[in-house]
């Protein structure tokens, strides 16, 4: 009993001192140094301030609120990432979210609230109105189409492999025999590797970050998932990591919207097409995923059948 008292008091002191440390603000300001090449200035998107979409309940509610709530990823470098120290969001998905917001008449610098939503809760977030639309490596597929609406696609990702820069032997999924390849547990890329390339030694962890960390520590030989996610990691450390191989799947990324709000999905499609035409789409790519050294592909054709 006395031991319990002592250890309790000790930990209490620890917790309190940790809290005091924060409360008194004796920390350094700013953000810890970032890795990888400096991104350029993100493009400024012209705000269509006369835009109006009364037929969309989501848009009307956002207009009344004065801002959009956009669901994003917060832990996917290059696509949707929040800097934990400053709270600033960056990445290709974030740029797409911002350019679409500008087209809907909201100033991307002032009128957006980002809300991080993990993959498992995306449908729920759109259904219970936590977010107005969702941009975050969201593959359009049949199962999801039953629950939510989609605009886009705005990018076609494909499954590839991330390896160490010095790796010579792995150039595609065919020469993975006996090598350890890592992916997120329960993910489609993992299932595809296990089913189509059974001679590879598949390893599953909770998140891609753990996979990449283990790749850098030589505990696995490759990480596999959508090339966008891999490019994001490669852009953080181009001296040590590279993305290899041809895509062995097709993942059309869409903007998730509430299922009933077809008007919003159609407006987003129109906005996306305009942004692709005026070069904003490519500029957004260049300051985010382009940092990995892979040039911008052609944007995919917008699938109007999704909104009809």
């Amino acid at each position, binding site marked *: 009993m006395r*031991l*319990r008292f002592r*250890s309790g008091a000790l930990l209490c002191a620890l917790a309190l001192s940790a809290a005091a440390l924060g409360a008194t603000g004796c920390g350094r300001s700013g953000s810890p140094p970032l890795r990888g090449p400096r991104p350029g200035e993100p493009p400024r998107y012209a705000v269509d301030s006369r835009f109006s979409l009364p037929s969309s309940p989501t848009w009307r509610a956002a207009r009344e609120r004065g801002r959009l709530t956009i669901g994003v990823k917060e832990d996917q470098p290059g696509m949707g990432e929040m800097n934990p120290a400053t709270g600033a969001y960056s990445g290709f998905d974030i740029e797409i979210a911002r350019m679409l917001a500008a087209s809907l008449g909201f100033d991307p610098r002032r009128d957006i609230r980002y809300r991080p939503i993990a993959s*498992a809760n995306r*449908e729920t977030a759109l259904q219970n109105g936590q977010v107005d639309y969702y941009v975050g490596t969201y593959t359009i597929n049949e*199962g*999801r189409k*039953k*629950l939510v609406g989609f605009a886009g696609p705005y990018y076609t990702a494909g499954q590839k492999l991330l390896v160490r820069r010095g790796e010579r032997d792995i150039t595609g999924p065919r020469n993975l025999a006996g090598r350890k390849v890592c992916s997120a*547990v*329960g993910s489609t890329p993992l299932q595809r590797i296990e089913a189509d390339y059974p001679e590879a030694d598949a*390893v*599953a*962890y*909770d998140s891609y970050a*753990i996979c990449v*960390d*283990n790749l850098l520590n030589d*505990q696995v030989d490759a990480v596999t998932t959508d090339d966008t996610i891999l490019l994001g990691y490669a852009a953080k450390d181009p001296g040590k990591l590279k993305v290899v191989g041809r895509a062995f799947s097709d993942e059309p990324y869409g903007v998730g919207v509430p299922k009933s709000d077809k008007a919003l999905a159609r407006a987003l499609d129109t906005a996306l097409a305009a942004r692709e035409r005026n070069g904003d789409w490519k500029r957004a790519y260049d300051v985010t995923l382009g940092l990995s050294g892979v040039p911008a592909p052609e944007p995919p054709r917008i699938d109007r059948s999704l909104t009809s």
Partner: protein
Amino acid sequence: MNVLTDNFSLYGEGFLGTIRLTVYSSLLALALGVLMAAFRVAPVGALRSVGTVWVTVLRNTPLTLLFFAMLLGLPRFGVALPFELFAVLALGCYTSSFICEAVRSGINTVPVGQGEAARSLGMNFGQTLGAVVLPQAFRTVIPPIGSTLIALAKNSAIAGSFSVTELLSTYKTLNENGYSVLWSFLWIALGYLILTLAISALFHAMERRWGVAR
């Protein structure tokens, strides 16, 4: 209504997953819990401290944190286990602290004379505990261990959020297949009720058979 009939195999798989988690974690928790309880009443001070620290830390650790630490921490050591095994480890270790306390208070209910008689027959600590005190303590700890294992069965739902196949996580697939959420949750709830009531019934039977009249 036909959520259940259409997806019987999915539910069955989830239900079996929950049962598997519960059974394996229970075995681990019982083994570890009894071992730690033995440590906590041992004559060696160092062993007592090990038991105390084990119980104090694990009882005050949120189970989600334990899952979080195992899934984030163990891969750093190059440990790549199936997630079901991670879940069994987390659930088993967590529950073992409650089992330990139940067994320890059970040991306290065994009359002192029993231990003294055993020792006067020349038994050492291990024999006294294993052959005389624990079998008697077992009779009084049936109800608290039952409650603890019911809690374990309910806690196994957390594993579903860490990519383990179990009952609660079936709602996601059903949702994607377009079934009504209300009905799928109703059947999930029923599954858990069946499981907890079954454990409850099992321990009631055990108590009627071996329990001590209060």
